[in-house]
C-alpha cells in the first residue's frame, strides 16, 4: 500500500508530470525502457569490494519497482552489466545500486567517481510484484543477492522477517537498512563471525517451524535458492526467487539469458531471465535444467 501510495503521490506531482511529458515527447511515444545518462550522486564502499551507489535517474526511478534490474554500460565493454535495483526514490528521481567487484566491468564501475555518469538502461524485467504487504513474508538473501530484496521488504515493514547470510561479518551489508524498514532481521555467517554460524536455510527452517508465513522471497546463489524453494514446496508456502543469467540485450530480444522453466502445461521451456524474470515463481523453475 505504501508503495502504491507513493507512486500515486508522485504521479500527481506536477514536476513529475512535466518530466514525463518532456520525456514522452522526446521519445515520441511513451516508452517502458529508458536509456539514461545518470550522474553518480554518491559512491560508498560498504564492505570490502562492495559498493553502494546512488544515481540521478529520474526516468528510470519513476518507472521502477522492487526486484527489477538495470543494465549498466561499462566503458569499452560490448555488453552491459545487469545490476538489481536496490532502492529508488521516485520523488527525488534517484536509483540505488549495490554491487560487488567480480570482474573487469564491475571493477570499472567501482573506479568511477561522483559527478561522472553511468549510461543505464532500465527498468528491466519482472520484479517481485508485491501483492499484499499485510501478509507475513520471509525474505532470504545470500551475499550479493541481498540488495534486490531491500525495496520489497520495505513494503512489508514489520510483517517481514529478513534472513540474510554472508561469508563473514565484514562482508555483511544492508542489515541496518532492513532494520530501518521495520523488518525483523536474522543474520548468518559462514564462519560464525556474526549472527548464526551456518546457512540461512537453517535459520529459515527454524523460523518457519515457529511462525506463520504466506510468502517467501529469495535471492542469492543457486544452491541456496534451490534449498529455499525445496523448503517452501515442502511446507506449501508460495515462493518467488530471483535468478541470474549472463545477458546481452537485457530486454527480451536476443534469447541468450535463459533459464529452464515449466510451462503451465508442464513442458520444459527456456524462459528469458531478463524479461520473464529475473523473479520467477519457484515452482516454475527446473533446478537441474
Amino acid at each position, binding site marked *: 500500500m505504501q508503495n502504491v501510495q507513493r507512486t500515486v503521490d508522485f504521479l500527481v506531482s506536477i514536476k513529475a508530470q512535466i518530466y514525463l511529458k518532456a520525456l514522452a515527447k522526446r*521519445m*515520441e*511515444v511513451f*516508452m*517502458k*525502457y*529508458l*536509456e539514461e545518462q545518470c550522474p553518480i550522486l554518491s559512491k560508498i564502499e560498504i564492505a570490502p569490494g562492495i559498493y553502494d551507489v546512488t544515481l540521478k535517474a529520474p526516468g528510470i526511478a519513476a518507472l521502477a519497482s522492487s526486484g527489477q534490474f538495470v543494465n549498466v*554500460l561499462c566503458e569499452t*565493454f*560490448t*555488453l*552491459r552489466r545487469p545490476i538489481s535495483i536496490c532502492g529508488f526514490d521516485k520523488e527525488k528521481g534517484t536509483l540505488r545500486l549495490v554491487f560487488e567487484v567480480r570482474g573487469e566491468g564491475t571493477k570499472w564501475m567501482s573506479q568511477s567517481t561522483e559527478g561522472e555518469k553511468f*549510461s543505464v*538502461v532500465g527498468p528491466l524485467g519482472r520484479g517481485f510484484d508485491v501483492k499484499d504487504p499485510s501478509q507475513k513474508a520471509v525474505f532470504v538473501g545470500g551475499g550479493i543477492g541481498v540488495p534486490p530484496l531491500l525495496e520489497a521488504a520495505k513494503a512489508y515493514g514489520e510483517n517481514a522477517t529478513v534472513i540474510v547470510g554472508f561469508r563473514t561479518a565484514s562482508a555483511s551489508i544492508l542489515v541496518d537498512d532492513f532494520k530501518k524498514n521495520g523488518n525483523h532481521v536474522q543474520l548468518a555467517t559462514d564462519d560464525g563471525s556474526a549472527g548464526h554460524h551456518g546457512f540461512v536455510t537453517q535459520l529459515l527452517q527454524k523460523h518457519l517451524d515457529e511462525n506463520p508465513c504466506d510468502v517467501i522471497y529469495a535471492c542469492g546463489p543457486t544452491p541456496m535458492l534451490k534449498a529455499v524453494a525445496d523448503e517452501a514446496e515442502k511446507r506449501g508456502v508460495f515462493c518467488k526467487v530471483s535468478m541470474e*543469467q*549472463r*545477458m*546481452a*540485450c*537485457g*530486454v*527480451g*530480444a*536476443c*534469447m*541468450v*539469458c*535463459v*533459464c*529452464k522453466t515449466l510451462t503451465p502445461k508442464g513442458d*520444459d*521451456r*527456456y524462459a528469458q531471465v531478463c*524479461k520473464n524474470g529475473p523473479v520467477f515463481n519457484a515452482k516454475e523453475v527446473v533446478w537441474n*535444467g
Partner: protein
Amino acid sequence: MAKMAVEICGVSFKNPIITASGTYGFGREFNEFFPLERLGGIACKAVTPEEKLGNPPPRVAETPSGMLNAVGLQNPGVKRFIREALPWLKKQNTVIIANVAGSSLEDYCQVATALEDTDVDFLELNISCPNVKKGGMQFGTSYEGVETVTKAVRSHTSKPLMVKLSPNVTDIVDIAKAAESGGADCLSLINTLLGMRIDVRTRRPILHNNVGGLSGPAVFPVALRMVWQVASHVDLPVIGIGGIAKWQDAVEMMLAGATAVQIGTANFTYPDTPLKVLAGMEEYLESQHVEDINEIIGTVKPW
C-alpha cells in the same frame, strides 16, 4: 539533407539501416526505446517450421570488442511468428525481413512456403548459423550446399530472396557465386565467426555449446573485407553486416559496395545505435556534399 532511401530487389527502404537477425527479436522490445518505423527495416529472429527450445545456458560470453552467442535457434516456430508477431510488425511501417532457418532442406522450404502469403517483404536465408548441430553450417560452407538450399527455397517462394553468408569459409566469393547460381536476389553478410572462451577457474567452456558465434566490433574488418570482395565479384546487391557500431563503419560498408547495412550486437551496447549511425551518415553526406546516399555505394578507390 541527403536522400537516404535505398531500393533492393524492388523493395524500398526509407534508409539503409536494418537491425540484424537474432539481436532484435521480432521488434517489440526495442520498440520501447524508439519506434521501429525509424528503421529502414528489421531482420527478424530466425524461424523454423516448429518451435525450438534452443541450447542450454550459458549462451553468451563477452570477448574483446565482441561477444559469442550460442542460442541455437530458439524460436516459437513459423506459425506462431505469423500469428503473433507479424500482425503487429506490419503496423510498424518498416520493411520486414523474415530470417528462415532449419535443419534440413525440407525445413527451409516449409518455412518459405508458410511465409508465402504473408506480409513479410523479404526472406533472408540463414544457412550459416553455427550453433545448431544439423543443417546450418554444413549448408553454408560449401558451394554445393549453398547452391542446393538456395535453389530449393527459390522454388518455394515468390518473395525477394536474400541469402546470408557464413564467414567461416576459405573463399567467400565462391560461396556468394553459389548463392547467385541458386537464384538468390541479394546477399547479406556476414553471419558470426565461430569462436570459443574457457573459464580458467572451472576449466569449462563458458558456453554450454562449447563454441559460439563471434559478433561485434571485433569482426568488423573481416566483414568489410568480405563485403568488398563479394560486391566486387558478384552482380547481386549486398547488405553489409558485422560489427557496425558507429556511422563510420556503416559508411565504410557502403563504400565497399553494400547497398544497406544490418546492425546487431551494437544494439546491446547502446539501444539507440541505429539512430546514431543514421544521423552520423546524414552529417557525413552533407559534409561530403553528396545528395543521395546511393551515390557513395561501391565508390571505394582501391590502390
